[in-house]
């Protein structure tokens, strides 16, 4: 899957290399046609004539992460917006949103249980068979209200805040830093424990960061079985300038 040979306008070579270049910010993702990558992958898949679920899964994760990165790249305002916030404010805002999200998750768990319990409560939907007909009468209206309604629809919307994208989907570099600092403290850690409670896309970005750590020879990844926890093990030797490899600024 990683050897997938790509022939795009902006890039020619294996998919793996493309990822590396993107992560090192040596290739402008905005210029990469992600749809073309998907098409190439599908063609390769068709050639093989058999479905490789594992490769498909990996591909989905990577492409999702790529799209995420590309989307962030296409909305440069968002970073400016974030850096406008003081660190404490940003933390406060993040905490608030996280709390909101958790509450919604909890409530979403309560609802189906309630629905199950109420499943034997039947009631009529709609009018009774022999009910009188309702007549709704409307007072005279001003034609100008129609024009006003359409005018309101023609008003340009206020700029939509994209701050949530940055808040919810931290960049790969952030995960790189985070995993490196964890590996400084611990020789081994479980990915699942680190990304617990994060959105899928965040987990995908985290995974991308892990792949990068492995590429750089900083860590090894182990997984006992499909869907089993992914174990991350520190590889770097003592004394080596471990953390200078691919810092965000590189």
């Amino acid at each position: 899957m990683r050897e997938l040979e790509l022939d795009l306008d902006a890039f020619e070579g294996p998919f793996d290399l493309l990822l590396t270049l993107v992560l090192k910010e040596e290739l402008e993702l905005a210029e990469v046609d992600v749809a073309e990558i998907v098409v190439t992958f599908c063609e390769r898949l068709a050639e093989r004539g058999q479905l490789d679920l594992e490769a498909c899964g990996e591909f989905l994760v990577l492409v999702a992460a790529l799209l995420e990165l590309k989307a962030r790249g296409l909305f440069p305002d968002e970073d400016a917006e974030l850096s406008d916030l003081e660190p404490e404010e940003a933390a406060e805002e993040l905490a608030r949103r996280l709390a909101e999200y958790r509450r919604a998750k909890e409530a979403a768990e309560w609802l189906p249980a309630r629905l199950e319990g109420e499943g034997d409560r039947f009631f009529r939907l709609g009018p009774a068979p022999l009910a009188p007909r309702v007549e709704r009468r409307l007072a005279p209206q001003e034609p100008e209200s129609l024009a006003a309604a359409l005018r309101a629809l023609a008003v340009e919307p206020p700029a939509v805040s994209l701050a949530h994208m940055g808040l919810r989907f931290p960049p790969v570099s952030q995960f790189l830093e985070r995993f490196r600092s964890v590996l400084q403290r611990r020789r081994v850690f479980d990915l699942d424990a680190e990304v617990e409670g994060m959105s899928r896309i965040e987990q995908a970005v985290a995974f991308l960061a892990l792949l990068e750590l492995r590429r750089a020879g900083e860590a090894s990844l182990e997984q006992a079985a499909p869907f089993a926890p992914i174990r991350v093990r520190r590889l770097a030797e003592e004394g080596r300038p471990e953390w200078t490899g691919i810092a965000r600024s590189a």
Partner: protein
Amino acid sequence: MDRDRPFRLITAGPVDALARTVEALLVVASQPLSADELAAAADDDPERVETALGLLQERFAEGRSGIVLEHVAGGWAFRASREAAEACGRLFERPVERGLSAAALETLAIVAYLGPVSRPEIARVRGVAADSVVAGLVERGLIAEAGREPGVGGAVRYRTTPLFERVFGLESLSQLPRLDDVGEDAGEIRERLEAVAERRGA
């Protein structure tokens, strides 16, 4: 009928249990149910259902109860007692409404200025699905179906009705206030609104 005889609602008899089931079915139904339909739902014998219905007809009888069991063309259904006719009249007679909801007004304006339009077109202009709002306006007689979009399987289109013109005091749609600031003609207005809706982004 001896109206004042105390009435046993609960007995251990199985027909009474069946009667309760039939009651339940009838209170949920939005159309009359035949004895056969009731029997199938209750998983019981049609004859026993008839017996249960007889029992219920006595219980839910005019003068005895506000709920009256009635045998009509399609089967059996509950109705309000005649005694309560005046109260029901008040319940169903709505006061004249002063205005329309924002969603209804927007949709109506779109149909008036850009019509005939389909629901997907309305949704594109408003930026949100329009199905329930359109259904409401049709029910109120302010808009009506006006053919389909060209081509096979085209969506149903809607236009405003004469009632709409009466309510808004218009002799025809050509009397609608001008919207030159939004667009020269319907096509231009539509294009502008669709573009804005897309940017509104939702």
